[in-house]
């Protein structure tokens, strides 16, 4: 059970190898990729920032919760920080279990909770030159996502 913030590209294959377990009949993985648009605005790149010590602590707590709720054998989550280009992997979650139901549910739980609770922030860089910190729009700014015009 490991939750880690990474400043370098995520190596999915080597993370998955750490989950090898002869008791496991199912391995479910989730990868979050930088996609080329958000709510209709063309995106060029993303910037992720984390409060690393608390992010890893909160992430480990999520993995422990998943282990209590579901019949898991192993779970790993790594979240990238820094500037990411289109198609790059922002987050990887891998879960093993004897049976597929637990693996699917735990993988979904981990990514849902990580997105909701772990102190990681995302800034989108749009084709227009504007940028926005996602979820940080406030009244008076452009509607969601908050668009800060180029300087």
């Amino acid at each position, binding site marked *: 059970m490991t939750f880690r913030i990474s400043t370098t590209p995520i190596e999915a294959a080597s993370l998955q190898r750490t989950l090898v377990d002869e008791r496991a009949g199912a391995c479910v993985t989730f990868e*979050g990729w930088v996609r080329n648009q958000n709510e209709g605005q063309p995106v060029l790149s993303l910037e*992720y*920032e*984390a*409060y690393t*010590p*608390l992010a890893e*602590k*909160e992430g480990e707590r999520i993995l422990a919760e998943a282990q209590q709720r579901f019949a898991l054998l192993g779970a790993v989550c790594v*979240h990238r920080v820094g500037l990411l280009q289109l198609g790059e992997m*922002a*987050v990887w979650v891998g879960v093993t279990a004897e049976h597929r139901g637990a693996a699917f549910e735990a993988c979904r739980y981990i*990514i849902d909770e*990580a*997105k*909701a*609770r*772990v*102190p*990681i*922030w*995302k*800034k989108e860089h749009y084709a227009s030159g504007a940028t926005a*910190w*996602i*979820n*940080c729009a*406030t009244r008076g*700014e452009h509607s969601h996502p908050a668009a800060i015009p180029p300087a």
Partner: protein
Amino acid sequence: MITLNVQYFAILREQRGVSQEQLSTAARTPAALYEELRARYPFTLPGDRVRAAVNETFVDADSVLNDGDQVVFIPPVAGG
């Protein structure tokens, strides 16, 4: 007055212009400290959209701050 270390991330870091600072304050809770900082810097997020962490642990906005604490205000998160 107590002395605190404050770290800023993401939108707060950009709006504050530094990623950390040491400051002396009469504020005794994260909520009071955030309002003090908001009066001084162009923070757009209201206090109720920001969580507080002290010494690498989430805390209530009205928990007690102690001299030497490391304080972080957490804007709405957006991992994944």
